[in-house]
């Protein structure tokens, strides 16, 4: 398994009252952005009664659980306040399990194993425009071998050209018969990024059909 896994595009995790649910390596995460701008990747489960934190809110730079209003601080996920006992100090270590998280190439990456990997995420900084993620109904080896026919595979990253667009694809095994393909491209001058993203997504859709059913 790769240490860093792409989880959601950076632009989806906005500052303010926004908690995004994400999945990687069979785990469920609550993602949010603190006032300092740092993305948080937390186990999506309150320490008190195991309710999903994505039902909560962000208030004053704290994630507030929707069930009992327990507040958790960015960084270490420590619980800072329990409204049922306003005067009582919160035990140290009572908090949410946090995961190493990074941002690269317009994407949020998490390390589901919990250890901070030494290397940076596998994204090539040159491919800055994230287009979208696809799910292909095949295993990751089939996806890689079909892509390899018209480009270069390096580890779990494919690079190649489709039409005018330079494309990078990160492949992730979701299940034995499902592969998630994260698609980026190099930004081209003279085309609006939204239009380019749509163009790449459309061409990649037909490529996915070939990945699923190679001739």
């Amino acid at each position: 398994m790769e240490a860093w896994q792409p989880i959601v595009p950076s632009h989806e995790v906005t500052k303010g009252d926004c908690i995004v649910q994400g999945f990687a390596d069979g785990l469920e995460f609550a993602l949010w952005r603190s006032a300092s701008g740092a993305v948080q990747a937390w186990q999506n489960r309150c320490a008190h009664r195991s309710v999903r934190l994505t039902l909560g809110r962000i208030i004053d730079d704290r994630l507030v659980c929707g069930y009992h209003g327990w507040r958790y601080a960015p960084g270490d996920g420590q619980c800072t306040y329990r409204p049922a006992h306003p005067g009582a100090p919160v035990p140290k270590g009572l908090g949410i399990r946090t995961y190493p998280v990074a941002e690269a190439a317009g994407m949020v990456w998490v390390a589901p194993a919990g250890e901070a990997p030494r290397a940076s995420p596998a994204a090539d900084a040159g491919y800055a425009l994230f287009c979208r993620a696809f799910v292909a109904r095949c295993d990751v080896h089939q996806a890689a071998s079909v892509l390899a026919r018209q480009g270069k595979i390096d580890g779990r990253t494919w690079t190649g050209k489709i039409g005018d667009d330079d494309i990078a694809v990160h492949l992730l095994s979701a299940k034995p018969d499902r592969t998630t393909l994260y698609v980026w491209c190099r930004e081209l001058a003279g085309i609006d990024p939204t239009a380019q993203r749509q163009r790449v997504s459309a061409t990649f859709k037909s490529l996915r059909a070939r990945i699923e059913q190679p001739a």
Partner: protein
Amino acid sequence: MTQDPNVLNDWLVVGQAGKLAPGSRGRFSARLLGEEVELSRDGQGRPRATDRAGRREFAVQERYSYLWVCLGEPRKPLFEFPEFVQPGRRILDCGAIGVAASGLRVIENFLDVAHLPYVHTDLLGKEPHTEVAVYTVEVDAQTDEIWARDVRLWQPKAAVSASGALLAKYAYRVMQPFSTMLYKTCPARPAENDIVCLFVQPVDETSSLAHTLLAYFDDASEDRDLIAFQQTIFGQDKPILENHRPQRLPIDGRLETPARCDATSIAYRRWLKSRGMRFSVHAGN
């Protein structure tokens, strides 16, 4: 089917007795512990419960306006509920609501007071009135029922009949793993308590039907307003209940961290553990 005697040999609710109108040939099927149970009446008008093929008979009784079935051997009689026939009380069934959750989570949520300002905002609680004062919890040695007493709560709109905010006094009684009732300040008759019963039908380990029955001193409100209030409250709990992960209730270990306000929940989990409850319980830490 589960082998846990705690549910197999207990009386479990399967629906309103009114679904089998007396003297009629009415029948219905209900799901209980993952099994299908057929309910009908015999020639003498007595309720009858069988498996789907009609080969196996189950113990069944009609009480407190519901039908109760035991799929194994009943260990003891159904709990007492003397207020059900107390003069002046109005008995009102608020219907059954399906919830994709463990029935133990549904009961525990009913016993939880700290969530009221957050999940039932402007009705049963509101910030900044979030502090939960100390209350008492004990297991009655004679009946083996859990009692939580002297729970005091500031409530913006405690009931349909409440004209404004009031300081409500609650007491909870847990009769069975899947049956509980709440005694709460009666706005119309301060010396008495209104009662809200929650009888959970465990459809299987992670899905439930919640039956709510009111025994109120309220002869002013309309049925539909009382039912709508109760369904609004449960509708607010439902998304919370369906978002516990794990879905089953942990009664052991350190997966979840309670606080002092959870005294009733702590007693409930300990009580379930002491009887060796396995059904709908989260295994592991």
